[in-house]
């Protein structure tokens, strides 16, 4: 298995803050892997996701993504990498409330031609994904704020998956769901991640879920900002 993401000696402090919030020796994700990351709040997970997403640049270290170092790329290039190769699912409020479900799913295709090309017929791809995530066709034209939170999270998953990005970043996507829905959501997500051939990095504070993944890592152990200072 080839390595999709390889992070080495990463150190990051927010501007104006001398203390680093993130100091990470090594983290690697193989292509197609589904990795659970235990990351309670305060563990630096938001910062790590922002770094992987290319939204911020670390003060030190390397982030090799598909064999290119994100830390060496300009902001515009990192934006492009994110648009083309990354799917993101947040804890909640994933959707633009004033767009319908289908338009929400097609959103990444607007910002990346490569993504749109891989999706083929974007509308068709959106419909297929929505269907695959268990959302009936009657909902597709509905405004995103007119559906339940559980449904919204599935739409967010469909959006993250459109155009088969190399990496799906999921930031506590199930924490707003109850136990049964959580399992359903994971079933659907796993199935579609496999169809897309994407790698999944799933961050959660809920260790119970870890068993279903290929591998689990603990960010609280990986991240040692005190050691770095």
């Amino acid at each position, binding site marked *: 298995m080839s390595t999709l993401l390889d992070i080495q000696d990463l150190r990051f402090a927010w501007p104006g803050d001398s203390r680093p919030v993130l100091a990470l020796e090594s983290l690697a994700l193989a292509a197609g892997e589904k990795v659970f990351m235990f990351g309670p709040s305060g563990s630096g997970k938001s910062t790590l996701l922002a770094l992987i997403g290319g939204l911020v640049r670390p003060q030190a270290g390397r982030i090799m993504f598909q064999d290119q170092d994100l830390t060496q790329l300009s902001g515009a290039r990192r934006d492009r990498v994110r648009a083309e190769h990354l799917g993101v699912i947040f804890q909640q409020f994933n959707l633009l409330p004033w767009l319908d479900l289908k338009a929400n799913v097609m959103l990444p295709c607007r*910002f990346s031609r490569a993504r749109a090309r891989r999706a083929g017929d974007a509308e068709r791809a959106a419909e297929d994904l929505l269907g695959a995530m268990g959302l009936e066709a009657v909902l597709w034209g509905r405004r995103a704020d007119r559906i339940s939170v559980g449904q919204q999270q599935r739409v967010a998953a469909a959006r993250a998956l459109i155009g088969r990005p190399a990496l799906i970043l999921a930031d506590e996507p199930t924490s707003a769901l109850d136990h049964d829905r959580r399992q359903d959501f994971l079933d659907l997500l796993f199935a579609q991640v496999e169809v897309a051939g994407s790698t999944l990095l799933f961050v959660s504070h809920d260790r119970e879920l870890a068993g279903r993944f290929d591998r689990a890592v603990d960010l609280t152990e990986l991240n040692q900002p005190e050691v770095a200072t």
Partner: protein
Amino acid sequence: MNLLGLAWRSLVNRRFAVILTVCTIALSIGLLVLVEQLRSEVREGFYRSVSGVDLIVGGRTAPVQLLLYSVFGIGDATNDISWQTYTELKGLPEVKWAIPMALGDSHRSYRVLGTSAAFFEHYRFGNQEPLELDRGQVFEDLFDVVIGAQVARQLDYDLGDRIVLAHGTGNVSLQGHDDHPFTVTGILAPTGTPIDQQLYVSLAAHRAIHIGWERGVQMPGSAIDPDQARAQAQELRPNAVTAIFLGLNTRAAVFGLQRRINEYRPEALSGIMPGITLQQLWRITGLAEQVLRVVAGLVVLAGLLGMLTVLLATLGERRREMAILRANGARPWQIAGLLVFEAGLIAAAGILLGVILALVVQLAAAPWLLANVGLHVGLSWPALWQVGILGLIFVAGLTVALVPALMAYRRTLADGMQVRT
């Protein structure tokens, strides 16, 4: 749907605040355009009213005052000109024609002008257009009256109607010339000038109805019988006229004649050139116009600041929207661009709506101006320089939007990939 489509959908989602903002800007732009349009239209209207007159002569008074009471019926004369002076001026070699004006009477608040046939023959308005009768004829009988188009329309008069004039001007009347009813024999075609708001009688008739009047009061039993007056019509002439319009054979003579009139020995006279006196009038009203302009400008500024307020206020609630767009591949400049585009759309819609508003108000105000000031205000497009100003305001709107755009830009960079609410 492209990025602009997204911006549009986002706007539609916030339509209430957006429409209010557009209305704010539209009102401010409407005010700005209206002030300018009315200013230029009113000036144009004033020039239209005196286009054929080379000199206006009246008793010694301020030029602007003479112009206002002789042409526009605003204010009253303080001094008259003797009949002798009138005949003398009329007989000068450089004078082509002279229109005498005897004022002082009214009919239901419309001015009555005692004049001669020269008025209908020589008076010019607008683009050197002569007066035309819509119906009927100029006075034949002593007690014939010709009425302006607006008078006929407002009072619903037609040929053959009998009317009574009132002594003095103003709405509260006063003593009537009840013994001498007049017959409407002619109705002038509309001119869009104060001509439409006056009634015209012959000088002889003006004299006839004033026989026996002393200091504004009629001496009992001293009035002249209408038939008696008709018999003497040839000899009846007023002792004085209020003003005289002069047309010269050559315009070059106007300065020399004006000086001679102003230095006229037997009587204190004022001679004015309408165009130059209008300029003086504009200098007087200029300050007020400047103040109006400044106020209108400030209102536009307030409109733009209102837009800024709305954009900044929505910035907070749109933070989530921006984080979502960013996580899905939007670049910071695209997020900033959304805000600038939005402001551009609001400003453009506001400006367009404002211009339409100004035109509508102009249309609505035109009848009122015509009825009350006798000015014909046409519908006109903003002049090129005004379009330039509107363009600048649009650019100012975009510039104002740079503030929230820059804030959004920096915030998207700082927020990273979190949805903050």
